[in-house]
Each structure stands twice: as structure tokens, then as C-alpha cells.
């Protein structure tokens, strides 16, 4: 019988959380978003990779991904931008005055399409949640943020792990150490 000494090293390696920056890059997220914009908003609608600063009335929509990597794909933009996007999605069916439900529906569906395609790039099997709209869930350190401009207006897409606080501690063990 062979002696086996459990050093714990193998277990720790396999238990290490997957970091989003090791799974997907900004260019891939931007490319997924651009494909969604071209198909759903319009052929000539472009997302430019430039930071612009979000307004104070920013709204977010997101979908959760639960699997080997768990987190959310969050789309954030100003309220006026969200209304303009929803109007583009509804096209000729857009009413003169959009109600909050139309804007939430439009924003949710954009997050759903981008999130579904991000999920396809991540390791599986994983499950996609239903779209949610509101104040964005807080991002931890396990986050990939892509700043974009659409028609000159700021829009961000963040792919963020739900175990941000835990990952933060694991990546920065000194944070938990008692100062000498």
C-alpha cells in the first residue's frame, strides 16, 4: 500500500474560485455586445470602447449566471439612454411616451442577450437567470468592466463574480491579518 500524504495542495487548487478576467476579456464582451446592438438596435449602431462617465440617474439590468463561475452580467446606462435603447428595440411599436415597464423590459432583454452569449463563453454547465432591473448588485474584485459609448452616451457592461468579497480576501490575505 502506498502512503499518501494529503498536503491539501490539490484540493486548494481545484477549489480556487475561477476569476472572470481569466475566462473572458474586454474585447470578447465588446464583440458580443456589438453583435447584439447591430441585430437588435440597428445595423449602423456602434459601441465605441471609450469611458464617458455615467450620469447620476443610471439604471442597471442584469442576468445571473450560476455554474463553475457564478456572478452577473450587468448593463448600466443613464435613464435617457435606457429610454432611447428601448425605443429602438420597439421601433414602430414604441408609444409616444414610454412607460417604466417598457424601459425595464427593453433593458432586461439587452442584458439577457448579452448575458446569454457571455455565458456561452464561460465554462459550463451553467444556468442563466431571468433578467432583473434596478440598482446594480455591487461588484467585488472579481469583475471585468467594459466602458462603452453609444451615440455619445455612456454605457458599461460589467461581468462580475458574486463571490467578490470572498475572492477579495483570498486574493489579498494580508487584509485579514492582524497588524503587528
Amino acid at each position, binding site marked *: 500500500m502506498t502512503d499518501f500524504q494529503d498536503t491539501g495542495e490539490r484540493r486548494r487548487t481545484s477549489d480556487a474560485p475561477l476569476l472572470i478576467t481569466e475566462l473572458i476579456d474586454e474585447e470578447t464582451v465588446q464583440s458580443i455586445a456589438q*453583435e*447584439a446592438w*447591430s*441585430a*437588435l438596435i440597428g445595423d449602423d449602431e456602434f459601441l465605441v470602447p471609450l469611458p464617458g462617465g455615467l450620469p447620476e440617474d443610471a439604471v442597471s439590468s442584469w442576468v445571473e449566471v450560476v455554474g463553475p463561475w457564478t456572478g452577473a452580467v450587468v448593463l448600466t446606462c443613464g435613464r435617457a439612454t435606457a429610454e432611447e435603447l*428601448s425605443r429602438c*428595440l*420597439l*421601433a*414602430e*411599436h414604441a408609444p409616444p411616451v414610454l412607460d417604466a415597464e*417598457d424601459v425595464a*423590459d*427593453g433593458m*432586461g*432583454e439587452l442584458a*439577457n*442577450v448579452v*448575458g*446569454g*452569449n457571455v*455565458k*456561452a463563453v464561460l465554462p*459550463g*454547465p451553467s444556468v*442563466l*437567470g*431571468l*433578467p432583473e432591473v434596478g440598482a446594480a448588485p455591487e461588484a467585488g474584485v472579481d469583475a471585468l468592466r467594459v466602458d462603452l459609448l453609444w451615440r455619445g452616451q455612456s454605457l458599461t457592461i460589467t461581468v462580475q463574480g458574486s463571490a467578490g468579497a470572498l475572492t477579495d480576501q483570498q486574493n489579498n490575505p494580508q487584509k485579514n491579518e492582524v497588524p503587528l
Partner: protein
Amino acid sequence: MKILVADDSRVMRQIVIRTLRQAGYDDHDIVEAEDGADALAKVSSEQPDLVLSDWNMPNMTGIECLEALRASGSAVPFGFVTSEGSAEMREKAANAGALFLIAKPFTEDTFKEHLDGVIA
């Protein structure tokens, strides 16, 4: 021909209907359903010739709707229009009896590619 479009997003139902029209399928009756349970009921009441359904929906998902239809003996042609187009999802859809899976975002060409053999 009657087509049932099931999606919990009203915006996406409008986009699917608009894309059907842009792809040339503009002379068909369209019925809308807002989730899988609504779609299941409307297959019975409306007798559509084709179902185009989202996958992730509240109350009853698209795949649950398809499974319930097949379990009840319905052979209505059924295709998914969903944001999830992975090989795993396509295999699940095919195994449950779906004819095709169109991944969002889609174009009119994607619709033509999948629907030309289905819609007369």
C-alpha cells in the same frame, strides 16, 4: 398558417414578429404567449402550426412547455428563440423534440435559414 410566439418580454415578442415579417413571412397569423404556461394553453386553444418559444421564462420554461406538449401527444412543430445557443442547449432542445434553436441576437437571414423548410 398560424404562428405562436412565446416570450416573457413584450419587447422581444415584437422583435421576433418584426423579424418574421422582414424575413418574408408576413402573411401569417401571429398569436402571442407571455410564458411557457400561456404557450401550453394557447397550443390547445389556438391550434398553431408552429411555436417559436423563448427558453427562460417564469411560470414554465420553454423546454418544460415542449416536454409537456410532447407528453400530451402534441406534435406541433416547435423551435426555440433564445439567448442561449451553446451546444449543450441545442442538444437538450433537439432531444426534447425541438426542430431548431435560433440564438439571440438573430437577423432575418437566421430566421430564413431555420424557417424556410418549416413555414410553407
